[in-house]
């Protein structure tokens, strides 16, 4: 069954049910016991007179009618009319007026009692006698009865109308929903057909369809952003791997050509070195995407960042010294505990320190500082090297966004991108600042559950 039809039916049934509830409520509130009691009395009186006629014939009926008129209350109406509608006997002035012709059985009618000028509402029972006479018996009632009877008839009509209206409403609603969904489907169809630039038209309205459209558009923006990034990464990976691969290739070639064993050994060890650096690039690229995808969050644990900073500083202090620089560590005033990935934070800090040692160096100091302000933790590495001009900092953080354009040097410009990815893994941020002169790289990490 198509969805549109289902929506139509559902809406129809819902409209019907709600109408039924309203109608039922009206019926319940207006239904009167007196009404059925009166009807019972009227029917009984009619049946009695009819029985009298059947057992005793016309003379008995005449007696019966006269008795009823004599002993009945003023509301009682009883009369016998001949086939032409002329009064034979009884206290009615004329044949009752009904909506149509008087018919056999119970009905409501307007009757005029003798001695009265205005017709009154009455419930009557009409019996047609074998020779065409009409035996009418009944009681005059208040206006309420007729009103109620009209109401009950109206309720029945209303019920039929409600069913029809429900179906119509359902169809209209289904059409409306179908049209709105249709636009969205048309766009998503095109997107599935590889046109990622399409967007669902939305106005400023706040209805559910507008929200859905906006949500889908946002999702599409994110997807195309990711696609773009993926394309960029793949492109630059493919591009940046060309130089190490070509160096590897030429080293292998040279080794194959070499006639001197010593030279061949040297070339072969260069082959190994080149493939190692290639592997390093791939591992780092992998590490970045793993961090961006948050896969290693299950390995988080609580550890002291101050202690980690001290360990790493101790580890790199001789390396800095070898490069002619001095590395100093400034520990936090109180233990700075972080819930995070110890290995990856260590890698991030060591990347920053290595960067500083590589680009800064001789005669300068490199300051590694761990601080905490109760809300977040910061690990900063500051050097007095050439720094990075403000307008190029964003580029420095990008994958493969290495600032020196000569790509011959080792490292493919993934270092800072990895540090940033690790910061993101911890819901943190990597900020590059000016040390005047030099660079301060700060890892801001929010403290969780502290």
């Amino acid at each position, binding site marked *: 069954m198509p969805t549109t039809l289902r929506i139509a039916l559902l809406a129809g049934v819902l409209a019907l049910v709600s109408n039924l509830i309203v109608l039922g409520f009206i019926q319940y509130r207006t239904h009167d016991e007196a009404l059925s009691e009166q009807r019972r009395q009227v029917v009984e009186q009619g049946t009695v007179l009819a029985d009298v006629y059947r057992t005793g014939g016309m003379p008995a009926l005449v007696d019966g009618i006269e008795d009823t008129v004599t002993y009945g209350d003023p509301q009682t109406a009883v009369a016998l009319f001949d086939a032409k509608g002329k009064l034979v006997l009884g206290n009615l002035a004329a044949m009752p007026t009904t909506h149509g012709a008087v018919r056999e059985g119970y009905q409501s009618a307007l009757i005029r009692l003798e001695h009265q000028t205005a017709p009154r509402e009455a419930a009557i029972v009409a019996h047609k006698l074998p020779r065409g006479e009409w035996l009418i018996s009944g009681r005059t009632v208040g206006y309420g009865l007729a009103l109620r009877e009209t109401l009950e008839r109206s309720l029945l009509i209303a019920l039929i109308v409600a069913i029809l209206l429900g179906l119509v409403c359902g169809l209209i609603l289904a059409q409306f929903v179908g049209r709105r969904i249709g636009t969205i489907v048309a766009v998503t169809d095109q997107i599935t057909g590889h046109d990622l630039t399409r967007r669902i038209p939305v106005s400023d309205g706040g209805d559910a369809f507008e929200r859905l459209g906006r949500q889908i558009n946002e999702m599409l923006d994110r997807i195309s952003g990711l696609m773009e990034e993926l394309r960029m990464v793949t492109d630059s990976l493919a591009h940046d791997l060309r130089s190490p691969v070509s160096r590897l290739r030429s080293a292998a070639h040279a080794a194959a050509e070499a006639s001197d064993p010593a030279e061949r050994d040297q070339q072969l060890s260069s082959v190994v070195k080149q493939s190692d650096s290639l592997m390093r690039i791939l591992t780092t690229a*992998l590490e970045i995407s793993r961090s961006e995808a948050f896969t290693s969050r299950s*390995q988080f644990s609580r550890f002291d960042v101050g202690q980690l900073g001290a360990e790493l500083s*101790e*580890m790199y202090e001789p*390396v800095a010294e070898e490069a002619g620089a001095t590395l100093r560590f400034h520990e936090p005033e109180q233990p700075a505990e972080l819930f995070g990935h110890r*290995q990856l934070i*260590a890698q991030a800090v*060591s990347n920053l320190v*290595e960067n500083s040692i590589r680009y800064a160096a001789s005669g300068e100091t490199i300051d590694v500082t761990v601080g905490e302000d109760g809300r977040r933790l910061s690990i900063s590495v500051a050097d007095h090297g050439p720094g990075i001009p403000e307008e190029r900092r964003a580029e420095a953080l990008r994958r493969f966004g290495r600032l020196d354009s000569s790509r011959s040097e080792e490292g493919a410009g993934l270092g800072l991108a990895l540090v940033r990815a690790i910061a993101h893994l911890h819901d943190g941020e990597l900020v590059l600042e000016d040390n005047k002169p030099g660079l301060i790289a700060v890892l801001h990490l929010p403290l969780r559950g502290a």
Partner: protein
Amino acid sequence: MGRKILLVEDDRETAAYLSKGLGQEGHSVELATNGQDGLFRATDGSFDLIVLDRMLPVLDGISVLKALRAAQIDTPVLVLSALASVGDRIEGLESGSDDYLTKPFSFAELLARVNALLRRREARVDPADHRIAVGDLEIDPLSRSVRRGGKKIELKPREYLLLEYFARNEGRVVTRTMLLEQVWDYHFDPGTNVIDVHVSRLRRKLEDGFEKPLLHTVRGAGYMLAA
């Protein structure tokens, strides 16, 4: 002396390369080409070492490892894997392996780690931390003091740990990544020569004023402490 090594590896080339290399070192190598077979053969516990690939047909390496450890078989396991991220390495180590090596690796690296694991198995019977002697070098693990030829050598705490690790692997090649993992407990690959710098500092302290070198550089592999 040769040992029994079980190699569980589905890649034919790698398996042949490793079997040949380990065979040349005097070990007898048995090969299983899928996880189920590997687990079956390993369950008798007769091997001195298991070299286990992580991605295997039928039953993956980590499951094999967990099954072995659950069956109380404590044969040392060296996991080989193409999964190289820090997270993968930690996961591999935490699942009960004794060492984790990412592909591609040099044979020297593998051999050094295999030897270290085999040695650790021997050393298990002797838990008492008695003095370690390498030639005229004497190390007291209890007081963490080091003497050479009777003369005390002052070492920083990390330098001591580095030396102790070397001494416990006396006469065996120790690679840079092994040092980074075992002495510093870091499982990432630093770009610089940080390990070399530390080793050369330690070497200066050990060898300055003495004629005989103790800490040797093994080209293309790593370092070795030997008298």
